[in-house]
């Protein structure tokens, strides 16, 4: 191969330069594509709580009527003051008409019975009697259970569906929220390590 003439060399250089420029839109498209790919990967149901690292909201609920106390049971109503007790507590929002609540119930029980944490319940949008009957059937792992018949406390907590689970630290600060049923994986990888850290 003979050496290129100066003119040809200029042309070759220009065309190489052009290929580099052609690459830029491709890179931009790949970057935007990656952004969308990861953006769409998340679960739209699992929204961050507005209370993370903020004090638990002000609320005051009467005790669930008709309840037969379980092994960890406390007959009182549930209010903000019950959440600032120098150790982490779990607040689980549930309802008797909620199917995922049945699915996660053994895990809630595990947190209270096997792991020894305090779990309070908020019985959300249930008729009187329904919540107590549900607990009698499935077992009652809760300490206190507040009765939120008019969903006002739920609104204070930013609840938009049941079940929802919050972890409040010893200072009464909300540290974690999960919307939807708890899973063994979530318990092992996130909830138990966080509770241990807050203990």
């Amino acid at each position, binding site marked *: 191969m003979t050496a290129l*003439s100066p003119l040809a060399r200029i042309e070759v250089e220009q065309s190489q330069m052009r290929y580099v420029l052609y690459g830029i839109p491709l890179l931009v498209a790949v970057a935007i594509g990656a952004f969308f790919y990861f953006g769409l990967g998340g679960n739209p149901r699992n929204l961050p709580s*507005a209370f993370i690292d903020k004090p638990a909201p002000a609320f005051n609920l009467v005790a669930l009527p008709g309840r037969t106390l379980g092994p960890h049971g406390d007959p009182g109503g549930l209010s903000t003051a019950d959440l600032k007790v120098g150790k982490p507590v779990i607040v689980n929002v549930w309802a008797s008409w909620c199917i995922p609540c049945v699915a996660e119930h053994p895990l809630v029980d595990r947190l209270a019975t096997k792991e020894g944490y305090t779990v309070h319940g908020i019985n959300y949008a249930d008729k009187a009697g329904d919540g107590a009957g549900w607990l009698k059937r499935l077992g009652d792992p809760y300490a206190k259970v507040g009765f939120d018949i008019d969903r006002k406390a739920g609104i204070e907590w930013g609840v938009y569906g049941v079940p929802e689970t919050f972890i409040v630290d010893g200072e009464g600060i909300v540290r974690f929220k999960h919307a939807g049923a708890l899973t063994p994986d979530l318990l092992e990888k996130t909830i138990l390590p966080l509770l241990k850290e807050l203990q």
Partner: protein
Amino acid sequence: MIRALKAAVLAVLLTAAFPAAAVLPDEILADPALEARARELSLELRCLVCQNQSIDDSNAELARDLRILVRERLVAGDTNAEALKHIQVRYGDFVLLNPPVKASTYLLWYGPPVMLGLGLIAIVVTMRRRRTAANPRAEPLTAAERARLDAAMRREGDA
């Protein structure tokens, strides 16, 4: 003919579906000015159960609760901004259908105008360059370039 026209008009009227708000009669405030403000705010708030509907559109129970809450706040004397804030501190930014401008949303708000600007700049630059290429006389060769070109042409001719 008249009969057919009447039938046609009736058919159109019967099939015309107007967007129906989910507001129930018992929610509506007696004060029409407050009610109008409540409707306006309801269009700004996302129903977190249905997610792509405003609470004004949605039949979900939560949407109803939030509609009532908005009305309670307005009756209590809140401004529109205060009533929205009341719900935002409980449900987070996601409840606002119009996302607030802040560091985490700069890309969302300013990304498209910046991309448009970059696109316009790219178009102007390309058009300029093309005009220069189409009209080589616009920039006559310098003496040095002329000499290089002559030398190159001579060599090409020799080969």
